[in-house]
């Protein structure tokens, strides 16, 4: 059992929790994730480690409520317990001094970008961060991202805050402005379509781009192959070989299709959970 020490509600659908998990906190690094199970009949879901405190033995997670498990997790409060919490999983981000790095975080993807941007800055990189969300309410950690970035650019899809536009628009402008030779690496984390769009932009300029893939997972230890993706024509397991990959090598179509494998079942679970089942039958 893993105790929730703090909870912060960023928006009605995005929440942050600080969880007591000393074994995970002891060795985790930027780019790694945990898998948790809220209760006995629950699903195992992966969430990125958004921050950690080795001294206090805590892990911070930030999640968006999209289905049954994340909604259920969202109902828990400080003092409650999460049944299972395993990590740190995945290969840590490759951190070195690349020069100038652009870190792009879209929506809830801002959370996983944060520890990586921080590590990149600590390694001596010049970090330019771009964060964006659909609307002002969904934006969070602007202050924390500013702390770990040399420059921070903010955007909202609907223009409700700072400026109107997608993170890809900002990214393109930035590359045009600074020149592609002055950007050594791009890191993009967010929804699949956003990461794919970022790769399309950087592909045109030939700038290496790292993405963090959010495939379906079960065990998260390389045992089931559920998380497999095609990268550079080869099958790779996101949970052990990743989650970070060269975005220009990823077969995004296969990833998107495999992610939708259980869409109907997910929908059904969500409807049953929220008590809106319109299917008429079942028990």
């Amino acid at each position, binding site marked *: 059992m893993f105790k929730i020490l703090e909870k912060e509600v960023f928006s009605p659908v995005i929440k942050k929790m600080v969880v007591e998990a000393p074994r995970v906190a002891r060795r985790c690094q930027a780019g790694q994730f945990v898998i948790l199970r809220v209760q006995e009949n629950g699903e195992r879901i992966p969430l990125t480690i958004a921050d950690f405190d080795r001294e206090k033995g805590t892990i911070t997670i930030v999640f968006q409520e999209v289905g049954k498990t994340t909604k259920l997790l969202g109902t828990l409060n400080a003092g409650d317990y999460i049944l299972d919490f395993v990590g740190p999983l995945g290969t840590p981000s490759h951190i070195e001094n690349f020069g100038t790095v652009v870190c792009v975080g879209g929506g809830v993807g801002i959370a996983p970008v944060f520890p990586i941007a921080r590590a990149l800055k600590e390694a001596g990189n010049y970090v330019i961060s771009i964060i964006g969300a659909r609307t002002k309410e969904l934006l969070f950690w602007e202050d924390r991202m500013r702390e770990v970035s040399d420059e921070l650019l903010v955007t909202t899809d609907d223009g409700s805050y700072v400026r109107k536009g997608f993170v890809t628009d900002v990214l393109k402008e930035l590359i045009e402005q600074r020149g592609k030779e002055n950007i050594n690496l791009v890191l993009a984390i967010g929804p699949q379509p956003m990461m794919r769009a970022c790769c399309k932009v950087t592909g045109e300029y030939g700038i290496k781009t790292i993405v963090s893939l959010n495939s379906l997972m079960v065990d998260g230890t390389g045992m089931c192959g559920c998380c497999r993706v095609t990268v550079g024509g080869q099958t790779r397991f996101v949970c052990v070989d990743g989650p970070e990959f060269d975005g220009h090598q990823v077969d995004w179509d296969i990833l998107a299709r*495999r992610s939708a494998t259980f869409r109907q079942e997910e929908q059904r679970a969500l409807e049953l959970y929220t008590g809106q089942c319109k299917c008429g039958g079942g028990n």
Partner: protein
Amino acid sequence: MAEKKEIIPKKHPMPVQDPRERIRNFNEVALGYDEETAVAEAKRCLQCKKEPCRQGCPVEVDIPAFIRMVAERDFEGAIKKIKEKNALPAVCGRVCPQENQCEKYCTLGKKHEPVAIGRLERFCADWELARGVFPQEVAPPTGFKVAVVGSGPAGLTCAADLAKLGHKVTVFEALHVPGGVLMYGIPEFRLPKRVVQAEIDNLRNLGVEIVTNAVVGKFATVDELMEEEGYDAVFIGTGAGLPYFMNIPGENSCGVYSANEFLTRVNLMKAYLFPAWDTPIKVGRKVAVIGGGNVAMDAARTALRLGAEESWIVYRRTEKEMPARHEEVENAKEEGIKFAFLTNPVRILADEHGWVKGMECLRYELGEPDESGRRRPVPIPGSEFIMEVDTVVVAIGQAPNPLVPRTTRGLEIGKKGNIVADPATGATSKPGVFAGGDVVTGAATVILAMGAGRIAARSIHAYLMSKKA
């Protein structure tokens, strides 16, 4: 034996759930002997002086002795006799490939059917479980701490034996449930999880601490367990959990599962109870399972229970070469599993949404024997044909889990990614580190893993005691 015995040529049949019933539930198929049947079956045994059956058992259970006790209705004595050698009789009695082990060497089997040794073993174990496992003696604390990595049959056995010898044992398990393949792989209908749970409860009663959600190599390495957490010795029993894929086009389509994923969703995550349990599984109308071992058989029978209209085993050799337990092949046939022998897919075809719609297959014929002694399947040129299926489960084997081998300093690793360990002691190339089970041998059997755990426990004890001296 003075009196002349009347020979009963056939085993007493195992009572089973009706096939038409059982393909609609996940309850255990084989129901077990009752006392009368067990005693009658035990009386078939000839009590051979040379004990050939015993030599067929990898852990040398004293088969004639325990069977004699069953015949004499001394069930308590019988289970104690079994447990002298076998720590998991309720499991082994159900899942050992007896036809290749103990029963293969049974004298009675030369002319007739062998004594149903496995069924009798199961009977004794269940008899005990129904009465609550008898308490075991634990030696006074030695002051030594041992870490056991992985809680499959190898780890469970090693931990229990070490605890009885008075060592402080902590088991680290990556998943949220201990038990290894017994919990996540072998289905409920073949090995009820309450049977495994009883073994795990027994371990806790012996004072063993079980830490779940603990992936060694991630939260701490084996070196760190020894250097920072003060473990005096480590046993590695992390199994062979890395699924092989066929590496053919279309294998990453939706609806293609590894057997591990398919069975883990169903057994560990209880997807057969969806939506009461949250983890989903999807099977289509026609399922093809590639492979011919126990894993393939389990996947095909599971698919049927999940509602598939047709469930196929697609195997590139013939029935004779299938490594699956004989009893399970019979059960599968009774349930209506279909078999495509001498067949193997070369390509998986997907529809416009990326879902499996068929497999392009080749037909095979058997050629010369290969290094395994089985005749090698050779593809017949031009024999391509399309098999229409909407779900594919790949069950062609598993490799040793690479995580611990890769993150432990000074551990000798074999060609197949296995940990190299002395079969007589379980000792690895690293002092204080022992290993056994599938991570050493590659995917094998429960009884071999258990035996390896037991051997390692003995030499870990000797290693620790020599440290003390």
